């Protein structure tokens, strides 16, 4: 979370300025996080809570994977695509990850342009972010249908432990819902930017709040990628 204004004069050999800033913030009246928008404070706390949801999912998945009696299907074979008879492991997931990470980049730029009051560029970048997000969801739908076609079900699959399919659909599905929700939020905020809503209220925080959520969703994907696909 945003640090408050750190007390400027640091005495040599004294308590580090960052620590003193922390203490000043927490012993202040009115606001603990100086000049932090209420919405921004709230989204941070929400993301902390959401982290616990995803952690619960992932930890459950990991303990399950460690304890199942049948072998766990090998992700690099399951998630491979063949081009000209040559299977390339994890290629689709790699592209999906790349798309999502790029969307974090466009989002960060949108926030920047928002605070510079550049209405059009901000809206455009947010639209680009939303499009990248939608691409991600589309590719995920493709992956789901491919696996379903190959016989993966929540209750079983041709290669081993039934929990593979169950965890896969549940975790990527829950994350996919987050991304889809994020796309809708981005579009709504982009529209408001475009129409000059924040220009009039003089406050572009909504762009940043949407951005924080979006970065979070991307970050979660990195963990899913690492724990589900790379393990």
């Amino acid at each position: 979370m945003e640090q408050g204004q750190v007390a400027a004069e640091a005495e040599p050999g004294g308590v580090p300025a960052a620590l003193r800033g922390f203490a000043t913030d927490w012993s202040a009246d009115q606001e603990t996080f100086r000049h932090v928008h209420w919405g921004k404070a709230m989204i941070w706390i929400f993301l902390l809570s959401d982290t616990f949801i995803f952690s619960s999912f992932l930890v459950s998945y990991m303990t399950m994977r460690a304890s199942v009696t049948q072998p766990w299907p090998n992700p690099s074979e399951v998630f491979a695509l063949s081009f000209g008879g040559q299977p390339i492991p994890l290629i689709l997931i790699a592209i999906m990850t790349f798309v999502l990470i790029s969307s974090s980049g466009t989002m960060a730029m949108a926030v920047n342009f928002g605070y510079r009051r550049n209405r059009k560029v901000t809206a455009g970048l947010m639209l680009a972010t939303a499009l990248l997000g939608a691409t991600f969801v589309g590719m995920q739908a493709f992956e789901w249908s491919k696996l379903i076609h190959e016989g993966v079900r929540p209750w079983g699959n041709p290669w081993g432990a039934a929990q593979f399919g169950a965890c896969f659909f549940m975790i990527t599905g829950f994350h996919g819902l987050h991304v889809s929700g994020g796309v809708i939020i981005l579009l709504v905020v982009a529209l408001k930017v475009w129409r000059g809503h924040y220009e009039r209220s003089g406050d572009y925080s909504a762009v940043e709040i949407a951005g924080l959520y979006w970065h979070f969703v991307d970050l979660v994907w990195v963990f899913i990628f690492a724990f589900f696909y790379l393990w």
Partner: protein
Amino acid sequence: MATIADDLRPLHHPKSWVGKYVWSQDHKIIAIQYAVTAIGVGIFALVLSFIMRLQLALPGQFQFIQPDNYLQFVTMHGMIMVVYLLTALLLGGFGNYLIPLMIGARDMVFPFVNMLSYWFYLLSVIVLFAGLFVPGGPTGGGWTLYPPQTILEGTPGASWGILMMMASLAIFVVAFTMGGLNYVTTVLQARTKGMTLMRMPCSVWGIFVASIMGLLAFPALFVAAIMTVFDSIAGTSFFVPTIVSMGKTLGHAGGSPILFQHLFWFFGHPEVYIVALPAFGIVSDLISVHARKNLFGYRMMVWAIIIIGALSFFVWAHHMYVSGMNPYFGFFFATSTLIIAIPTAIKVYNWLLTLWRGNIHFHVPMLFAIAFLFTFIHGGLSGLFLGNVSVDVPLSDTFFVIGHFHMVMGVSPVLVIFGAIYHWYPKITGRMWDERLARLHFWITFIGAYAIFLPMHYIGMLGVPRRYYALGETVFIPQSVHYANMGITIAAGIVFAAQALFFYNMIVSLFRGAKADPNPWGAASLEWQTAETPPGHGNWGATLPTVYRWAYDYSVPGAARDFIPQNEAPGGTAEPHPS
């Protein structure tokens, strides 16, 4: 900064009656909506408990209580009491009412989200009650809802009831999240001038920390609910191992029942403190006000709340000593459990030291606060038994456990809630309740609670199991158990009936009660210094109060009165808040 705390514009000013009292965004109205709904479902759960008691005292005498629905009553009673009554009432009710008033804010930071929180809560209650009418009735898996049993044939409500319960809990989590985000952000970012965190009354501290805990603990329940639903309808095997049921091998394989227990108790134990911490905070304030003495060791009390909150995320598996988990876990969790006893004991000593040589006024709220000290110390002591693995193993799943947790998380918070309602009623309604009825209600409830729950420890030690429809002719169960069961039921009937005194008093006083003084107890915290009683929309008139001191300046030597309001400037005379 788009919004500043002193800005009146963002407040929503409804004109119509419906906008004011139904789709209200005012934290005080939302608090009352929460409280009334929670108390309503609580009465239902109380009725269920009395039905169970009838069965336990007179087994087999009542046609409408069969083994199946006994389990359903147990489950609904437990779940409603813990989640839909206590959590909703303490956080949604008291949290909503007290936070903005005690920290000098006009409202919660997101009134609209706050309103949604209530309506989602109501929806979760509706879904819960709809679960009573689905085919097969509500789930009878116990409030812990352990699979595989909850979703297998043979358990009441295994097909529909469990789904309704899980859906209702998931909606409740959403509702709580919306409320909790508001409570936490409001405390962090919307305090008035001079209100530092270390000047907040303990009530706010308790509710604040409990809200944070809720935001971190409910996710585990949410995830467990989703996974159970999939196991039940999508054929997954998250929690269900290979099972042969009634001669058939079920389609499940490889799931882990213990995983559910871990998820459930990762929520379930912090939940105990989500209920307890607001009660701790409120009781600290009641004791200080009515003993006319500053709270002993305020800083220590705050830190104890924080430390208890943090530690309670590391003790969950003390509910699982007999689950078959790795025994070394038992060692770890027994140790962490006993460590929590330290900050808790600090709180108890500080309450007692606050009373020490205080100028104690035995007003009804104070009676309830002192009663809480009894029941809480009592429940804490029996908790020491259950926290140790080797002592817990024989006591686990007996009525000793029932006696223990009713004392510590049933009776104790309920006593605080009664005390708090009596304490703040004059502010909330502007009227005073009837003193004699309130005293009568107190004594019957307090003594009755002991009459109900103390014998449960005894029969539990003799080995009477919990969740049993009837004991039948069991050799090791002596006649005294049957006498005790009869006695408990009679006491429960009396306590049950005595609650009518409370409701009668509250409702009649609403119309006929004497007009209340704006600050009848001479309390120093901000909510008593509002210009209007009950506080108007926006709470503070034109300007927010400024805070100069902590909330516990009672009997200060040399002061004009025996309390100094938080908004009185140092050296200044009493400066009533300008309206």
